[in-house]
């Protein structure tokens, strides 16, 4: 958009698009974001439709078809106890997407407000929140998740809570740092100068301006969370066997990489595509939400 010097000419400009349509116009123009949207939609659809898709029972074993390569009967092959990999992938999509999305949602919804609070109020609030965050960060992500999951008890929902809490410190730190940097902007001072309340200032001036990096971090963390769920499943703390998840499939498959590579290949590709989809979608959302044109 070029700068316009004469108000007379501006009146003749076409009325600018309203916010909603402006967002969709920009989003649709971004092919990568559309691809991300398609990928995510596809896997979400598979997860939701798994019960009605013509899939064989994902827990049914067939001792006559152990570690069979892909064939018409088993398009993605079978695993070490003769279960259909395709069917387990379809059903596993549920657990994996839930683990990825719900745990990141927990981390964002708890971490971002805490980080903003620390950055906005500073002083003692910041000191307490920051020290607790550092204590959490001192333990490696996965160890922390395993400890929490063991404490909460083995189930998929507890695993998601454990992963969410373990991923939370990153979001506290990110939100705090972003808040501190946005707070130095003149427009925050201008919001104070007009007498805006703290709540409105945080909601309308700080939150919208710290969202882009948080969006990017969230899409990256979804990948970490899916893998973490796999590790927890492997330890018996996540999705309970014999119910499938991509992570647990991958974990078992690594023992048979040479004899039955298809066991690892398909869950691996699925995780890759989901993560790619969320990343592209996140980037696209970030750009589409930015009022500036690029």
């Amino acid at each position, binding site marked *: 958009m070029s*700068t316009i010097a004469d*108000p007379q000419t501006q009146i003749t400009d076409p*009325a600018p698009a309203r916010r909603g349509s402006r967002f969709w116009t920009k989003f649709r123009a971004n092919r990568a974001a559309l691809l991300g949207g398609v990928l995510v939609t596809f896997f979400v659809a598979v997860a939701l439709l798994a019960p009605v898709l013509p899939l064989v029972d994902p827990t049914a074993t067939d001792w006559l078809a152990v570690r069979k390569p892909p064939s018409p009967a088993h398009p993605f092959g079978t695993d070490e106890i003769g279960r259909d990999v395709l069917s387990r992938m379809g059903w596993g999509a549920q657990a994996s997407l839930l683990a990825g999305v719900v745990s990141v949602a927990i981390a964002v919804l708890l971490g971002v407000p805490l980080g903003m609070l620390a950055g906005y109020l500073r002083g003692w609030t910041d000191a307490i929140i920051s020290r607790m965050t550092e204590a959490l960060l001192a333990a490696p992500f996965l160890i922390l998740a395993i400890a929490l999951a063991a404490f909460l008890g083995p189930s998929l929902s507890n695993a998601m809570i454990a992963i969410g809490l373990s991923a939370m410190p990153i979001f506290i730190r990110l939100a705090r740092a972003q808040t501190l940097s946005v707070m130095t902007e*003149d427009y925050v001072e*201008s*919001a104070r100068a007009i*007498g805006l*309340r703290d709540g409105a200032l945080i909601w309308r001036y700080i939150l*919208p301006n710290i969202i882009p990096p948080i969006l990017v971090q969230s899409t990256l963390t979804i990948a970490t969370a899916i893998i973490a769920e796999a590790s927890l499943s492997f330890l018996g703390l996540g999705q309970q066997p014999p119910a499938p998840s991509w992570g647990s499939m991958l974990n078992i498959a690594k023992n048979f990489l040479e004899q039955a590579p298809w066991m690892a290949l398909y869950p691996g590709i699925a995780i890759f595509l989901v993560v790619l989809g969320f990343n592209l979608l996140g980037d696209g959302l970030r750009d589409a939400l930015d009022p500036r044109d690029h």
Partner: protein
Amino acid sequence: MTRTILKATGLRKDFVTQKPLFGAPTVVKAVNGVDLDIQAGETFAIVGESGCGKSTLARLLVRLIEPTEGEVWFNDRDIAHLPADDMRALRKDLQFIFQDPFSSLNPRMTVGALIEEPLRAHGQGDSAARQARVAELLGRVGLTPAHADRFPHEFSGGQRQRIGIARALATGPKLIIGDEPVSALDVSIQAQVVNILEDLKAEFGLTLIVIAHDLAVIRHMSDRVAVMYLGELVEVGRCEDLFSAPRHPYTEALLAAIPIASVGARKARTQLDGDLPNPISPPPGCRFHTRCPYASARCKTEHPPLRAAGPQGAGHQVACHHADDLSLQGLQDASAARSAAASARFDLYRAARGAAPGPATSETT
């Protein structure tokens, strides 16, 4: 009869720049004991070179930062010690225009939302009434109601500064403080924004405090001027008095630094050597003595207070031991005060304003 709208007494702001584990912290005295008395309806200018504490003073006057010491009275209320909620409510009468029009508008809000914000914050009017007010304000500053749906980045610097002005005007304030409101703008846009401010001031009966370093702009628009040096006021007086007969050597040096465009008009300049001293350890005595061509032994030890000077009733104040002995050079010729280019600029704008139907609708000259 004039009455005082804003009064500052003994205003001080220290910034701690370094706080060692042991020993005394390093303190910058950004504003050091400033007394001010702003009359309702006047335009009061505060000038000084960069780093002298002008912007800190401006923020202290509206309590965007808390003073270390001193009081600010706005309409007989001490705002420096007002509870947070009362202060917030008071802000509808006390607005601020920022220096940088590119960073002072939230990039994620539409222009309409930005101008509506003060109205929402103070619960003025319902949604429809606020929209109408936004449209009216946009018109007042020479934009159109259609601009309300756009984002700040779609506008030029001058237009953005006018959006900032509309935002400051929304709640119908009594006093507006402009922190270098035009210094970030192109010279060609400055006159236009200055004139919008003047028009609006006349129209709404505002009191304006303008922080600036451009003396041409100051002389054009202000009634009284305060000159600031290293956190202190060194001279306060009516604009014409101060420009024609400065009483502080620093003011003389500032005036001498105004470029003169006409050939042969160059006079012997009072030259200032060196930079502003470090405000962490300001010189003893008169803070200006290190650069003052008239400094005496007394200036090095004794700090001169701000005192009345000149003819009775003029309200001229100066902080200099030798104010009565010195005969300092002001700007004798009124036309030389403003560079030829500057006066051409103001004249052109005046002509455009005379011809235009409303105030401030023409942007091109």
